């Protein structure tokens, strides 16, 4: 009996420590004690100290990684397969220098704190609104803050603390708070910030490296395989790295579909700086305005059960409050179904356009089937008074979602590219 009670308390303590509940009595007291006891151990070990220790370590640690021949073979295969010149003019192996190693070291290693200022532009002008993001990352401690600007306005602030995520939209003075990334349809899209994604990719190695000149200075161009989507679409990133500092200057996202390849976005890295944990800790904070509208999200992966799926007529759908979002009665295909889905923790509405496209409208509970794999790369692009986030789901569908308290909307398109979904967003309207 005692053991059972302890198990229950242990589970509650875990939930309190994860910020999923406030706790009371003994649980709250123990959580405070443990947090206070652990806090002094969360000190920073600066990247310079790690590098010093590494230099003092026995020689084999400092032996440059012999890149496996497999990597060169892969690069060769990639070039042959694409049958295009692309960026890889030549594969250069500078004797004694491993560019990927140096580039990773320039970012302070895999878990160092970073301050990033980056501008995201569409490769095709007008495809989406350019934006500037200022990010503080301390992902070693799962803490991060992103400020996203578009057309000179701050459009989104996202705070990650432990597992808890807060997304604040200054333009609508609203915030969505989730117990973890799983409470958001796109997971934590920012966790795959282009620079962070580039840093992760570096740990897996590069497909090819070429030395070139850009803007009058020597640069390395690294090609990093990233992601394979549905319908054999491959997105990879091409990163231009300063040959002197080994810091990234530009990241280009390319999307390949069959033999066709196109650039999707160009990320200009204006600043990337390794920072200490103390500096990051000071910068990573968010104070919400007193009158902000807050939506507390539910984790759709925990204890959520579907109770009912009910077809709606257009007349019934038009009476739903807040209004259901859709793309009109026809969008490439006519509407084939409007449904209400009810779970034990909330409800959502689904408008299907044949087999090609689905529009979801939902509130505090993200429809479980929309929840993405946590580490699937995503991109966030400002539109109107919000930010549209793109991601792929675990079963490789492409999703664009716009979060708004009480009336979030997501478009799922298994056969469309990002820009096609972005265009669909421009056609969104209330079903009245």
């Amino acid at each position, binding site marked *: 009996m005692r053991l059972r009670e302890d198990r229950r308390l242990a589970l509650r303590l875990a939930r309190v420590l994860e910020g999923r509940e406030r706790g009371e009595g003994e649980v709250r*007291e123990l959580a405070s004690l443990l947090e206070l006891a652990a806090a002094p*151990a969360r000190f920073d070990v600066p990247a310079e100290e*790690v590098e010093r*220790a590494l230099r003092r370590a026995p020689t084999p640690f400092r032996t440059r990684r012999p890149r496996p021949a497999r990597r060169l073979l892969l690069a060769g295969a990639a070039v042959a397969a694409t049958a295009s010149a692309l960026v890889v003019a030549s594969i250069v192996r500078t004797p004694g220098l491993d560019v990927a190693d140096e580039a990773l070291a320039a970012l302070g290693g*895999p878990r160092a704190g970073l301050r990033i200022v980056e501008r995201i532009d569409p490769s095709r002008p007008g495809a989406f609104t350019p934006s500037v993001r200022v990010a503080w990352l301390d992902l070693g401690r*799962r803490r991060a803050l992103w400020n996203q600007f578009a057309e000179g306005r701050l459009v989104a602030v996202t705070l990650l603390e*432990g597992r808890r995520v807060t997304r604040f939209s200054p333009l609508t003075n609203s915030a969505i708070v989730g117990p973890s990334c799983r409470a958001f349809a796109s997971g934590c899209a920012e966790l795959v910030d282009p620079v962070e994604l580039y840093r992760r990719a570096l*740990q897996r190695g590069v497909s090819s490296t070429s030395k070139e000149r850009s803007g009058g200075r020597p640069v390395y161009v690294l090609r990093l395989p990233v992601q394979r989507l549905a319908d054999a679409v491959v997105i990879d990133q091409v990163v231009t790295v300063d040959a002197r500092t080994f810091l990234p200057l530009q990241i280009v996202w390319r999307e390949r579909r069959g033999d066709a390849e196109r650039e999707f976005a160009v990320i200009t890295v204006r600043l990337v700086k390794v920072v200490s944990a103390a500096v990051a800790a000071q910068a990573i904070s968010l104070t919400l305005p007193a009158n902000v509208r807050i939506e507390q999200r539910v984790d759709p992966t925990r204890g959520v059960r579907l109770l009912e799926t009910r077809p709606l007529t257009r007349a019934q759908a038009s009476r739903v409050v807040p209004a259901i979002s859709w793309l009109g009665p026809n969008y490439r295909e006519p509407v084939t179904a409007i449904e209400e889905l009810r779970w034990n923790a909330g409800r959502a509405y689904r408008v299907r356009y044949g087999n090609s496209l689905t529009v979801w409208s939902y509130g505090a509970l993200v429809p479980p089937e929309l929840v993405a794999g946590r580490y699937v790369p995503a991109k966030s692009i400002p539109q109107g008074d919000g930010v549209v986030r793109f991601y792929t789901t675990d079963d490789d569908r492409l999703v664009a979602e716009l979060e708004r308290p009480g009336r979030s909307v997501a478009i799922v398109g298994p056969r469309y590219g990002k820009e096609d979904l972005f265009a669909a967003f421009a056609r969104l309207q209330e079903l009245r």
Partner: protein
Amino acid sequence: MPEEFGDEQRFRREQADLELLFRAHYAEIVRYLAVRLGSREEASDLASEVFVEALRRVPTLRWRGKPVLAWLYRVASNMAADELSRRGREAPAAEVEGTAVPIDLSEQVADREALVRALRTLPPDYQLVVHLRLVEGYSFAEVARMTGRSVGACQMVLLRAGRLLRTTLRQEGIRATA
């Protein structure tokens, strides 16, 4: 947090690339040892020894479903125990008697230090779970994988660790307010 945490691909990569292993994990091994030893400087020295041992042993490790990091922590824990044993510095639980007075620990520097001392008196396996979950921020699933326990067992360890901390502090006359 990394997507490959605990998978065989990452295990192989870290096994083959000791420099990557060093950069990825040196800092957290230092933090862990600093608590165990009560000294940041000694922690850095001992962490280097952990990685020297890694140089010798990691290439021969076999994949058993745990990340290389789990092995690093085990070695660090053993080395810390040896070091404390050698120097006779295993800190005994305080045996101060007195009336427990409620204090807001967050505002009392001296008592925070007592709390850190109390943390060092926890059994090493308890300290490891506290460190992995609360200092490094690994999920319970990750902590379970590294320590070879179930998620429920790790949660129980935290509960017991909290209670031990509370007992030790009460023996020092300190009672935390929730």
